């Protein structure tokens, strides 16, 4: 745009009637977006005032500067003139640049069917669409679980392909690198559990049972649940974001066209890694949780270190360990499934990656809690 920033003259609009059927529109001053632009309707008022007017012409001698502001005015004018009126808009008086741009704007006619109207959808329609979408997503989940199972079977028969280095890298990321946060959370959970128990048990003089409470609570359920939730936020979200971004960048398509099954290549190593690492992390969380309880036991309840240790050993059975480790492995699979499923089925935009990540975390946490409930009930029935 010619830079005539010297002064903001404002845009001027005046009218003349050189002959009975012609309206001369005089444009003066600056016609820029930054100045206040007159509305095209003003011209039409003059057109409608003189019933015989059939032509609009322009005089742009006093025009000092213009940009898109003038263009949208002229386009609007053209629209108004062709709506139920028989008025010709003659562009001869306009600047050559303006004429060319207007020509360019109308060069490619609007493609039929391109424009979308924002239709109002009724409540029932929306409910139906939502129900169908929910059903589809259930089907997709089942399909994904099926594909993952098939891939796992192929792995067992030695047919699945993925890069071992990827597998070890993922193991490191979701195993060793999670230790600090798992330590912190588990110690605190053990601490909280001991603290709550201590207040009640002290009334009966049964402080020593804090060791059993913390021991069984952590080993059987809480260590696995807390580790699962940490991994959902840490690793499940990362899986969804990674795979989602790969989907956006067509990297997953590139794998498919190379004949590499993305489920085997991307999902399987992630699932295996979490499946193997989760029980280990959970075992570590057991230890940290008991340590947290120990801190409270020794510092607040006047228990002796050995006393606490022996009581813990006495009350925690092998079965508790097994239930805890089994749950952790299940949670690992659930977190990996949720993260990878959302990532692989992600849409192709930045916000879709965000949605995939969110729903990966939400699904993981919900399924962890549901699975824990199921495991607890089953164990109860089986007397484990």
């Amino acid at each position, binding site marked *: *745009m*010619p*830079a005539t920033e010297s002064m903001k003259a404002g845009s001027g609009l005046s009218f003349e009637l050189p002959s009975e059927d012609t309206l001369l529109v005089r444009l003066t001053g600056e016609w820029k*977006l*930054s100045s206040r*632009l007159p509305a095209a309707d003003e011209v039409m008022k003059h057109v409608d005032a003189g019933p015989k007017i059939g032509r609009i012409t322009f005089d742009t001698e006093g025009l000092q500067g213009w*940009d*898109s502001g003038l*263009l*949208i005015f002229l*386009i*609007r004018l053209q629209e108004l003139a062709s709506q139920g009126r028989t008025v010709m808009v003659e562009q001869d008086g306009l600047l*050559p*640049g*303006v004429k*060319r*741009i207007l020509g*360019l*704007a*109308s*060069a*490619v*006619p*609007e*493609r039929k069917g*391109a*424009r*979308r109207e*924002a239709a109002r959808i009724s409540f029932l329609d929306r409910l139906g669409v939502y129900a169908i979408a929910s059903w589809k997503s259930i089907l997709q989940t089942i399909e994904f679980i099926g594909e993952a199972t098939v891939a796992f079977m192929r792995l067992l028969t030695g047919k699945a392909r993925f890069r071992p280095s990827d597998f070890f890298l993922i193991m490191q990321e979701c195993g060793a690198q999670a230790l600090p946060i798992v330590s912190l959370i588990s110690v605190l959970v053990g601490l909280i559990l001991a603290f709550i128990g201590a207040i009640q048990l002290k009334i009966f003089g049964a402080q020593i049972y804090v060791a059993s409470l913390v021991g069984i609570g952590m080993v059987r359920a809480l260590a696995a649940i807390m580790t699962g939730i940490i991994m959902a936020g840490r690793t499940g979200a990362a899986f969804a974001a990674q795979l989602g971004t790969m989907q*956006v960048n067509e990297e997953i398509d590139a794998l498919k066209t190379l004949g590499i099954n993305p489920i085997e290549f991307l999902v399987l190593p992630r699932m295996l890694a979490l499946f193997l690492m989760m029980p280990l992390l959970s075992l570590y969380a057991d230890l940290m949780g008991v340590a947290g309880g120990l801190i409270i036991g020794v510092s607040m309840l006047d228990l002796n270190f050995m006393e606490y240790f022996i009581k813990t050993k006495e009350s925690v059975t092998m079965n508790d360990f097994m239930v805890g480790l089994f749950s952790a492995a299940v949670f690992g699979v659930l977190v990996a499934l949720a993260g990878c499923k959302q990532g692989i089925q992600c*849409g*192709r*935009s*930045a*916000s*879709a990656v965000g949605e995939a990540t969110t729903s990966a975390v939400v699904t993981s946490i919900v399924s962890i809690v549901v699975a824990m409930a199921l495991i607890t009930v089953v164990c109860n029935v089986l007397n484990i």
Partner: protein
Amino acid sequence: MADKKPHIIVQDLTMAYGDFLIQRDLTFTINRGDIFIVMGGSGCGKSTLLRHLVGLQSPAKGKVLYGDVSFWDAEPEERETIMRSFGILYQSGALWSSLTIGENISLPLQQYTNLSPGQIRQIAALKLSLVGLSGFEEFYPSEISGGMKKRAGLARAMALDPEILFFDEPSAGLDPISAHLLDELILELRESLGATVVIVTHELASIFAIGNNSVFLDPETKTMIAQGDPKSLLAESKDPKVINFLTRGAGAKPQ
């Protein structure tokens, strides 16, 4: 085109990523209304030069002047004012994927002008019609083709009526006819809006069709080895590298 006022002056510019030198001692001037081509083989730093010009990356040495203001020595507010006069078309469009095409074009207008929503809609429609995409306001970038994305990106670049338009490989990924139409469009926009255009490309057809000034970057010596009108470069240059590039490796000047 009569006024040959300098618009962008690059003085002694050296670009580097850490210790890794990309290009050194670049000195050239882009005049107002020029269609300036940055050319050179792949990996010679063309896009990096563009990033320096538009203020995404600071030079290791040297200056980039807009008018008489040195961009990298200016205050942040002044830089922002300069940057607002840019329209940039990125290599793959770089449309914001969570916004519709219409919203993509409206965003800069909402940020920097006091226009009413109705006016913004009209301008978005105008810009889309200029690039031949009338009526595509409600589409998301993932729903349109690569060439359309590029044109929508151009519409967004033009949203604020920029004084300088930067293009990073505008015709890459377009079919020859679309590429030709885009060239025409660039010429037309330059003619009617009087904007300065800077294009990074190695598309020979475009270079000769629309460029009237250029700089040639050499990846081996890591500096510029030619500048001027591409057509006269082809006719007059003595440098075999330049001739080779401009003749697609044929080495000889076409008769």
